[in-house]
């Protein structure tokens, strides 16, 4: 990466008024129905531009039915939000496919494709968002998805600033680029339910216990370091990924949409802080952030192990 180009871009970004759009990623946890409805009622008031909706982790979760999601979608659209329906990460059964087809043919809202099956149903028919699980690590698949109708792509978590810079640093690039900037990282998905396994239950008879853990179930190492979070079929990072301090660099490299992943507390405050930054205020003016602590990480952005917290100032000195 060319450091010179980066700093030039950073300076440019400070002069823009609304330099990027804020998106609220799909809700990854299993919350009670009323909690979900009230969460999105509140979110309608937040300064987010886009809201991704739908169950993306486990097709067994039933607190909200497809019609409930569509009702929330309509309300958010009325409130002026762009709504995107996200497809499930893992599509296995015929009933998974039925739901998938219902989402991809909804006829009103943009769809985020999270597996190749979803791409198959959308490609060449309707514009779509190429989701973070499509593994777009280089220009080759990016160009392909654009040709198939993608209007936006979400960068994989593992692709850091060097990768992003070399992928989109090309003229004629006309895709929106979304980056995951805040939340616990969705690192892996399995057919096995780890929450059920912890509770000594089988997936078929899981009792929907993940509803008891609104931010997942923390996994520590034997020397008591918080390491991962179990969220049903999904495994997340225990640390909260946070690129707030890297905002200018993100925008300089071409990120147009920044994704904040919902958590049970504080999501509104996070959104507001990013919004303040989007309106051109210098990040340093924002003061200490409520979530900023040793439990955050940003390693992936710097091409390091994801769990690391890289001190950007120290990084610059090294460069």
């Amino acid at each position: 990466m060319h450091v010179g180009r980066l700093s030039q871009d950073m300076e440019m970004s400070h002069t823009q008024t609304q330099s990027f759009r804020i998106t609220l990623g799909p809700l990854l946890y299993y919350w009670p129905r009323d909690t979900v409805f009230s969460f999105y009622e509140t979110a309608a008031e937040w300064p987010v531009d886009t809201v991704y909706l739908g169950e993306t982790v486990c097709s067994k979760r039933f607190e909200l039915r497809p019609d409930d999601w569509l009702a929330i979608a309509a309300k958010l659209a009325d409130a002026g939000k762009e709504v995107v329906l996200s497809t499930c990460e893992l599509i296995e059964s015929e009933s998974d496919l039925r739901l998938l087809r219902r989402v991809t043919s909804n006829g009103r809202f943009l769809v985020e494709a999270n597996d190749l099956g979803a791409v198959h149903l959308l490609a060449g028919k309707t514009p779509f968002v190429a989701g973070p699980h499509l593994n777009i690590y280089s220009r080759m698949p990016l160009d392909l998805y654009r040709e198939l109708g993608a209007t936006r792509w979400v960068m994989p978590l593992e692709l850091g600033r060097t990768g992003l810079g070399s992928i989109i640093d090309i003229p004629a690039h006309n895709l929106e680029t979304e980056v995951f900037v805040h939340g616990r990282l969705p690192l892996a998905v399995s057919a096995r339910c780890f929450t059920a396994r912890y509770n000594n239950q089988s997936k078929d008879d899981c009792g929907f216990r993940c509803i008891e853990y609104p931010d997942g179930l923390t996994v520590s190492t034997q020397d008591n370091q918080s390491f991962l979070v179990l969220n049903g079929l999904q495994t997340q990072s225990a640390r909260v990924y946070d690129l707030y301090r890297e905002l200018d660099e993100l925008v300089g490299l071409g990120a147009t949409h920044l994704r904040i992943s919902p958590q049970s507390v504080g999501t509104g405050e996070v959104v507001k802080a990013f919004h303040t930054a989007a309106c051109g205020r210098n990040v340093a003016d924002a003061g200490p952030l409520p979530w900023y602590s040793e439990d955050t990480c940003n390693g992936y952005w710097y091409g390091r192990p994801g769990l690391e917290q890289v001190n950007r100032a120290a990084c610059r000195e090294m460069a």
Partner: protein
Amino acid sequence: MLVTEQTEGAMRNPTMKGGLAEIGSNRHGQEIALVCPAGSLTALKEAIDNGADDVYVGIRDETNARNFAGLNFDDKSMRDGIRYAHIRGARVLMALNTYPQATNAQKWQRAVDYAADCGVDAIIVADVGLMHYARNRHPQLRLHLSVQGSATNYEAINFVHQRFGISRAVLPRVLSMQQIAQVIANTPVEIEAFGFGSLSIMVEGRCALSSYATGESPNTHGGCSPAKAVRWEQKTTSLDSYLGAVLIDRFQKGERPGYPTLCRGRFKVNDDVYYTFEEPTSLNTLELLPKLRSMGVRAIKIEGRQRSPAYVSLVTRVWREALDHCHARPDQYQVNSAWQAALAKVAEGNQCTLGAYHRTWK
């Protein structure tokens, strides 16, 4: 338009460069092809001598998902291996099954060119961009969808079939028997299922746990829980294994220490210390063979390019015998206890599981 939709089935029987392989016919004339791993020329010969129909290999870099020091093929051993296989009617599949990275994607394209030039019988690919490249540049080259491509349903498999002419798809180790049957009923693509070896707990191609701890993962560097990130610490009461800065397991006196693969670690949830994701165990589907055959599975894959030639030889021999029995008398097929005993010796933790094939595993 660059991306064209292939007509249904158009690429199902491409002329093979090696001139050997037609779908459905392998050197043993059976419905199911036995697909064996080779991390070296010696292992390739062991696989073929012991009855493999297909052998899969990789070159010495991050273009394949077993990018380990001292493993894989240089140009000479690759060409020698292909010759050795073709003389004996076996096929060589080249795994180019990691994701081309932003800064050096050309490396993967060159690897596809190389595979075509060598005359491999197929390449095993995960990235749709690379499939597109291969289809355009080398229309005669047969394409298999890697397990790393995370295709867990027939819509996904039909997508890569119709767009890029994928001929065979390797299913992620997350589907149950019923789900596999459903895939087969709804796709013209040959289905390859895992038979034996290391068991992936996460959907392949969808796991970044390794890079979260070490900076390297199968998708980005072709390896999980890389050896260079492993550290052992002898404590007063235990032997501790680390990956990067993360304590993966702690072995008390008398316990046999295992390699710190991240998802085989013992972690703590509330007050319980246990194998949070999976015990050290290997997948073994010998007992499912007649069922897999009648369902229409066309190839059985043995995992383990990182394992020794002795492993390849033993596992191939056992599975050849089982397949021959199953082919000759499917109704009378029974798992021979000697087969199971032999496989248990080389299984992780000396134990086996049916994994996701059996619903209760999930």
